[in-house]
């Protein structure tokens, strides 16, 4: 991979830092009038998700990371791996549980996810922002109680548990925002 100098740093650039691929979130050029210039950089470690801040001398360079984001369709899970397919080439990739991470509690077959490939293998998976999933387990619904603000936990078919309004019942389909894990609404004609 090419090396990138601090003057090429910009948000979204993927770099290797201490052996791990990282993505630049923010880059600030700092230079005292008579002093050495440096770059304060906020990065996300793409393996661990941790955000770290580093200060580089301007002119230093870091190796680029072979990291690429790609839309892929989730196919199935065979107990060991989760399989994703590139829509154009139909090429399949197997992702470990570690790479799928928190996404697994939202994934239904055929969902289109953003899969981050690192050296050609899935490093992380971002599920669709909104998913529609069936409730498989919750306290009996209080029909008609649609006005009150109360809520109760409901287990969804993919394994996630979300807070839903009291009137919902097992078998109802709900829309959920996967970024926050929040209930967005009931899907009427499921």
């Amino acid at each position, binding site marked *: 991979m090419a090396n990138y100098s601090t003057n090429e740093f910009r948000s979204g650039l993927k770099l290797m830092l201490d052996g791990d691929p990282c993505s630049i979130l923010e880059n600030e050029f700092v230079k005292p009038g008579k002093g050495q210039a440096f770059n304060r950089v906020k990065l996300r470690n793409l393996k661990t998700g941790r955000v770290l801040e580093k200060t580089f001398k*301007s002119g230093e360079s870091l190796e680029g990371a072979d990291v690429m984001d790609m839309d892929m369709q989730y196919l199935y899970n065979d107990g060991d791996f989760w399989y994703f397919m590139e829509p154009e080439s139909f090429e399949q990739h197997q992702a470990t549980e570690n790479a799928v991470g928190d996404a697994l509690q939202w994934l239904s077959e055929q969902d289109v996810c953003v899969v981050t490939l690192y050296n050609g293998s899935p490093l992380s998976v971002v599920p669709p922002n909104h998913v529609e999933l069936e409730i498989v387990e919750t306290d009996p619904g209080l029909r008609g109680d649609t006005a009150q603000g109360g809520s109760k936990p409901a287990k969804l078919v993919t394994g996630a548990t979300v807070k839903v309004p009291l009137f919902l019942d097992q078998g109802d389909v709900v829309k959920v925002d996967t970024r926050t894990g929040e209930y967005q609404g009931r899907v009427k004609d499921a």
Partner: protein
Amino acid sequence: MDNWQPGTSLAMLQSRAALLATLRQFFFQRSVMEVDVPVLARTSVTDINIESIPAMPYGGSGYLQTSPEYFMKRLLSQGAGDIFCLGKAFRNGEQGCRHNPEFSLLEWYRCGWDEHQLMDEMAELISLVFAARSSQPLAVTKCSYEECFGQTLGVDAHGADLAELQQRAVAASSDSWAGESRANCLDLLFSLLVEPQLPAGLVFVYDYPACQSALAQLHNNAQGQQVSRRFEVFLNGMELANGYFELTDSAEQQQRFEGDIAQRIEAGKPPIPMDRHLLAALDHGMPSCAGVALGVDRLLMQLEGADSIAQVLPFSWDRC
């Protein structure tokens, strides 16, 4: 081309025009003469951390000037008296939310004054500029470098050994600072840790470390430590200006040039020929004086509450 338009509103242009007029009037009323000096010259600063933009007049070698300092000092040596220059300066590789490679600089010199008198005058000027905007008086604080540094870091900036400063610099940033010079470690620590702790308003930090003297004279502080008679000015935590009780000794000036050039060669940076005209002017005799340079775009940023220099420049580098 979508970005043919200026990056500033008409109101911002008017604000800049009003600021420039206020600055000129301030000096006119005090009988400080405006001078207009070249921005293109055959030589430039040798400073290790300032890069000049090379130019090729008539196919030869030249540089866009990083400040009007050397030309102004040649005028002072001829007997021009108190002078100011309000114009453009250029620095290569400096671009960010507080930097643009071309920027406006206000620089002035007061003959027979020391750096503390000049700081007082600057406080009057900045207070005047802000008085037009707000009924709240501008808070003004003066603090020596070792006080600011010691309060935040608990380290004696002038007395601490290099290993301790390097250790603190590494802890504050990354391993790549382990072998850095004293001046670079101090700058890093000051920028990252001390600047954010400076009080709001206008802050003068004086008696800079001797290793960062640039073109300032040296003297001993109350503790008997050698420090430079250099000050920096911060406005709400942002570096705004840099001033000196000026070095007038041509032999020492030449030594500093030679030291800079040796450092540049060691660091693999392009060598810059020293300005022999300046040395000759100092040989002829420059009056004792204090001088300061102020970033006009940053002052406008503060006046307008802008968080990026591009917001106050009609055409920042990205639009040029």
